[in-house]
């Protein structure tokens, strides 16, 4: 899990020259544009843009591929079902199954769109460490309490995961092996319950420690990032690209 410790070790990519806020906003703007596109040519162009970005960010091809496979998994069922179920003129009939051309067209549009979106989000957002994203969201004006909860969660997930591992080890040492029966569900229920109890008790200790140190609902968000020339350039380019794509799509 990428937490703060991984932050220092992470190799910096060329995208890191940008303010994190710019990356978040550009990613959202691009994906929203993609949602409105219908032309296959433009969507393919977006995929190429996404691939360029991924290369630019120095993301290993294997990671990109894994991410894409994951997203396409969602599509698989729909992709199979869509051409079969659309109540539009069929172009191929095999017994009870009828493949419809418009259905197939829509499925392709959707596949292109989802791929393009994943390729845009991966280099711009998924490459960030959680802490960095949390700080950027805070500086973008998300409620400080929400940002605080996010940053705290990141801090404690690793810890609670270790706690979960210990509980799991303890269960296995007592001969627990998951099966499809009520006993397994009961054991998992107790497992989650115990995890919740430990988390709450830890939260109580954390809370007391923080109050002793004068915590008043917020920590300062410190950063060296500045909204610079590169950010203005990238933001301008995004607006131009989005506008051009939307215009061409309507033609």
């Amino acid at each position, binding site marked *: 899990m990428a937490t703060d410790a991984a932050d220092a070790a992470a190799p910096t990519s060329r995208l890191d020259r940008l303010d994190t806020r710019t990356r978040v906003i550009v990613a959202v703007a691009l994906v929203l544009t993609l949602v409105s596109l219908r032309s296959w040519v433009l969507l393919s162009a977006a995929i190429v843009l996404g691939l360029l970005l991924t290369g630019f960010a120095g993301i290993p091809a294997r990671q990109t591929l894994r991410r894409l496979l994951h997203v396409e998994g969602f599509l698989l069922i729909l992709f199979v079902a869509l051409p079969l179920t659309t109540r539009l003129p069929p172009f191929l009939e095999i017994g009870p199954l009828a493949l419809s051309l418009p259905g197939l067209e829509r499925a392709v549009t959707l596949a292109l769109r989802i791929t393009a979106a994943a390729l845009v989000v991966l280099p711009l957002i998924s490459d960030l460490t959680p802490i960095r994203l949390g700080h950027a969201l805070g500086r973008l004006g998300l409620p400080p309490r929400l940002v605080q909860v996010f940053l705290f969660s990141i801090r404690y*997930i690793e810890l609670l995961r270790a706690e979960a591992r210990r509980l799991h080890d303890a269960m296995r040492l007592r001969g627990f092996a998951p099966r499809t029966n009520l006993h397994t569900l009961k054991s998992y229920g107790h497992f989650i319950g115990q995890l919740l109890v430990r*988390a709450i008790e830890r939260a109580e200790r954390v809370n007391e420690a923080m109050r002793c140190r004068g915590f008043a609902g917020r920590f300062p968000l410190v950063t060296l990032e500045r909204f610079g020339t590169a950010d203005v350039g990238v933001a301008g380019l995004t607006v131009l690209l989005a506008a051009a794509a939307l215009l061409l799509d309507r033609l």
Partner: protein
Amino acid sequence: MAHIPDGVLSLPVLAAGTLAGVGGLALGIRRLTDRDIPRTALLAAVFFIASSQAFSLGPTSVHLLLGGLTGLVLGWKAFPAIFVGLLLQTLLFGFGGLTTLGVDLVNMALPGVLLAAVVRPFIRVDRPARSAAFTGGAAALAVVITAVLVGVEIALSEPAFAPALGVMAAAYLPLAGIEAAVTAFVTLYLLKVKPEMIVAPAVLGTAI
């Protein structure tokens, strides 16, 4: 499949979902006192861990959604907690999308929060079996409603999908059963070990 990836939903659906998600978040954050920040964060971490763990079921495995349980333990604060979880899942595993965060948040959090509010008055330490039955039922129903919400959103965005969605929704039924059982056992456990976590007046923190 509770996570809808970027690019599937149409703009009107995205806008409506995001608006509803922001509303729920605002309600949750208003109830977040300083004292609740570490609690909500740690519970968010637990739900994140528990729902990212695959539980084996026969030949396959399932991921729990735990929407009902989150609503029971956190009330409206489930919205910030689940938002945090979704953001982390997008970031670390690439589940779901960026623009669909609001929609996913509503799908996951709203059924749990509302159903938990309905059954909360029936949870009592001296009636563990009845309490567990109520929370289990709420958890199962929350899964079903989540599935229906996902289906309706996709159908509204891409009407051609509508016929396929019924089949997909049916895939949620076994999960609903598992969630019901697990949530019922968690309820029994908490009633024995730390009843104040789940019994009516003390939804963690100051106010529900």
